[in-house]
């Protein structure tokens, strides 16, 4: 496993507007997520969680500081290059599932890969593999034929299909009951153990507790970080 983190924010600041009306959404946040790591971000609304996730995924750029994904500094890229890196390297999972209702589970997972120029045959093979990895046994069903938990599995498969290993998850358990939410975290944890890097935004501590590290944001700054205790060798 390489020591280079999959994503690194260094002293990242994001200011919206300027002058007296300027809003400091994020103030000098540094954060790294390595392959195999699950990092959770907690904080009240307005604390900068979404800004942090948007910066990490290249949906937004920092006012100062830097964001590096898989060794590539995002600030050095043109918008077009950034969009390409986002498509190839970063997967997203949201609370609202954003699956396309008229496409099957497998087709939903294939779509971003096909948009990226991967041929249909290969995209389907990758999709079936990704769906098998998340334990979905009905790849040809449509989203409304699946349960909420199964649909979220499809979204996770889509996020990690191909060569992507950075997964940004924004309240992925939002609409799920606790056993199903736990299943989703168990799955994210398993994908981490298989080499993915997961940055999870959640307001529920029971899900954050699955992380190796929990970062508490307050007013755009890191207020505290807790590491999971190292397992003692027995």
């Amino acid at each position: 496993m390489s020591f280079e983190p999959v994503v690194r924010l260094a002293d990242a600041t994001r200011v919206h507007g300027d002058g007296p009306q300027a809003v400091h959404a994020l103030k000098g946040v540094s954060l790294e997520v390595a392959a195999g790591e699950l990092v959770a971000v907690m904080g009240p609304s307005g604390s900068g969680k979404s800004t942090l996730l948007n910066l990490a995924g290249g949906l937004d750029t920092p006012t100062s500081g830097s964001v590096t994904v898989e060794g590539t500094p995002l600030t050095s890229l043109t918008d077009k290059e950034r969009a390409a890196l986002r498509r190839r390297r970063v997967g997203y999972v949201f609370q609202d599932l954003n699956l396309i209702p008229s496409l099957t589970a497998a087709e939903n997972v294939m779509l971003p890969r096909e948009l990226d120029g991967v041929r249909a045959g290969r995209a389907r093979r990758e999709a079936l593999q990704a769906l098998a990895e998340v334990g979905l046994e009905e790849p040809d069903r449509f989203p409304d034929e699946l349960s909420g938990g199964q649909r979220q599995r499809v979204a996770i498969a889509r996020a990690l299909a191909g060569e992507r290993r950075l997964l940004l998850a924004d309240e992925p358990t939002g609409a799920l009951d606790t056993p199903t939410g736990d299943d989703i975290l168990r799955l994210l944890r398993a994908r981490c153990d298989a080499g993915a890097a997961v940055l999870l935004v959640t307001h529920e501590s029971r899900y954050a507790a699955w992380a190796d590290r929990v970062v508490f944001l307050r007013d755009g700054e890191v207020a505290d970080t807790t590491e999971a205790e190292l397992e003692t060798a027995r």
Partner: protein
Amino acid sequence: MAIRQGLLALLSRGPRYGYQLRTEFEASTGATWPLNIGQVYTTLSRLERDGLVASGDQDDQGRVVYSITEAGRTEMERWFSTPVAQSDRPRDELVIKLAMAVAAGAEVRPVIQAQRAATMRTLQRLTRTKRASTDGPAQTLVLESMIFQAEAEQRWLDHCEAVLAASPQTQEKQA
């Protein structure tokens, strides 16, 4: 303490030796309430005195089998059907600490944040145990109970922080 009723519940599945009861009690509660064998025999002799269990004759190894009586079954059913009263739980030091911090005009936010980080570490440890657990559903339920309690504490801390941040009294102090 629920040891009496816990032993009755185990005996309701059939006669048991004392040491068996101890093993099964700990297996069901994930060793959250370790029992020593002395407690088990003391409790059994009180249950016998109260007519809730009956003991058999000693076998050639000196072991005695205990079984539940009809009165014992009634007691166990009464226990299962009676909710636990909120007031039976001990007073919570954290609640008193935060109330006193507010009353004394101390800075409450660091107290909340320190507690939140500590409780999160506990939650992370419990979740690791849950992930690694291959034990039966009884033990998992006990773990889940501790997870839900820690989670409730976190939610209460978030609530306290939000309420205090919005209160003009505490805002003055933080400014």
